């Protein structure tokens, strides 16, 4: 059985590094991208099971990328979590409007992330 793959797409390298460290520690495969275009390319080529998207990125935003993912047959089933640092209500609704499965605010807690990863990828906490 191959490991579950998690893609993290964020323009802050430190965040990419912290998340991929956590993902790796939990036994999954981490893939990183530092902008939306690269993220989309990697999704198509590496078929991740779960995607963590930063909302505020230059170029293609997290919302747009999410809509892209969800509008294609091949990628629709990928679980999308949107990460955002702007905590306004409108972003949450925009997030769900774009088809995201989940919404997380920054700063996030690694403990919470670990638990969520297991819930989603293992089917058990």
């Amino acid at each position: 059985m191959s490991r579950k793959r998690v893609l993290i797409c964020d323009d802050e390298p430190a965040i990419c590094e912290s998340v991929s460290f956590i993902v790796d520690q939990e036994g999954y495969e981490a893939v990183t991208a530092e902008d939306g275009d690269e993220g989309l390319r990697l999704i198509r080529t590496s078929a991740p099971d779960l995607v963590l998207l930063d909302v505020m990125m230059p170029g293609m935003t997290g919302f747009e990328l999410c809509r892209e993912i969800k509008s294609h047959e091949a990628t629709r089933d990928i679980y999308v979590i949107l990460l955002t640092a702007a905590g306004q209500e409108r972003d949450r609704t925009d997030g769900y409007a774009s088809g995201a499965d989940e919404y997380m605010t920054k700063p996030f807690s690694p403990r919470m992330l670990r638990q969520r990863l297991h819930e989603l990828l293992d089917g058990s906490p």
Partner: protein
Amino acid sequence: MRRPGIVATFAISSAAILFVLGIAVTAYSLMQIRSVLYDEAQRRVEAQALNWIEANTPQIVLANADVLSRLIADFAARERLAYALLEDPAGRVLAQTTVPADLRSESSDIVATTARSRVYGMMAADGVHYLEVATPVSASGTGMSRDLSSMFSIVSGGQSLATLRVGIDTRELEGRLRALVWTNAPLYSGLVLLAVVIQVVLMRRLVRPIAAIGRAARSVAAGDLSTAVAPGATLENEVGELVRNFNDMVARLEENRTDMQALHAGLEHKVWERTAQLEALNAKLVEADRLKSEFLSTVSHEFRTPLTSIKAFAEILLDAPPEDRQQRQRFLGIIDSESDRLTRLLSDLLDLAKIESGFLEWRFAEIDVREPVQQAVAAMMASARAKDISLELSAPVSCQVRVDGDRIQQVVNNLLSNALKFCPEGGRVSVSVECFEPRGRTCTADGSYARVSVSDTGSGIPQADLPRIFDRFFRGSNVARGVKGTGLGLAISREIVLRHGGEIWAESEPGRGSVFRFTVPLAAVKDNAATANVSEEWGHHE
């Protein structure tokens, strides 16, 4: 029934008055005329009686009845008397004509008394009235002169021999009176009518302007202020004055209305203007509000980003630290540098807030602008060398300016750090200071300024981004990954330059690097002109 107008009322009352007056005057006149007629009749009859008496006294003395009867009959016939009779002092009739039956006096009063006779009013059985003149026949009536007669009568005792009573049928007199009335009445009525007509005509001439004023007033009340009353406008009397005053009044009302309309239009325009102003202001406020929300959103994002790394790595190190010490150190390093980043962000944000709200304490002094520039360049030397970038300064001429030196240094520092950030290794950053005193054309408000330029050989800035690079948190579309700027440096620099009364802008061609320039006005020093650089170079202004 509609009440009659002025003219009709006047005509009716006028006619009534004239009529009543006429009747009164006529009645009085008739009275006078009757009196005169009767008087005249009396005298005539008396004169005739006296004549007859004088002529026939001898006969009377002789008292021959037949002769007397004949004489008296002739007399009566000749003079057309109603009757005549001669009676003696005792009352016995000596001679008479036909005397109306039952003749008696109307009253015991004598109607009149003349010199010689007495006049009585008599009435007969058939109701006819007679005027009787009773003239005494005295012995003195013998053809002598009056004086002698009276002498004689005195001598003879003045006794009356007989009395001649002559009667006039008053119907004759009354008839004459009536004829008078009947001939005069039409004439008089005609005159009254003429008078009334003349008055009506005159009245109408007066009333016409008044009626015209009435109509005009109604039309003015209905809103037509162009009416003017024509009839009577030229009259010299009170009515004419009324008409002219009315016309003046209407003209003034019209003026007033025009003024009011102009005022109203003016006010409406003002209201429209003010509304437009308020709408524009409101739009600005709405925009400002939106910008504020956007700003808060961006600031929130800017703070949360480094915090995310700090929290993530701190928790990782606490719960499940990596076994590799190097990795642990690395994580701690990231926590450290992200904390620094947060600090810089906070500090820059506070700086910006202070400058914008006016709370920053500026320390202006008159200095050579080259000083803060040189200090900033010196501070950056080490970083430039570390990236193998050559950093040059060209500042041949002294420029006296009135500035806050520390803040200017902050600006140059910011521009330099940006330049070094975006300049590749081996590139070149040049700084220059120039003094401008252009002749004729004005660049800044007071026409002379110092200009500092920082140019780099980096990748340049796209044209689309140029207007926005001084905005807060703007990082550009192709900014290098992980560049740890706060995004506020240029915004702060701009605020500082603007507060000095200068301008700041950037020139760039993608692929050929960029030049950032800012100006500050020269201090007004009298003897500086000679040493100034009078180059007429014009920079690009935003």
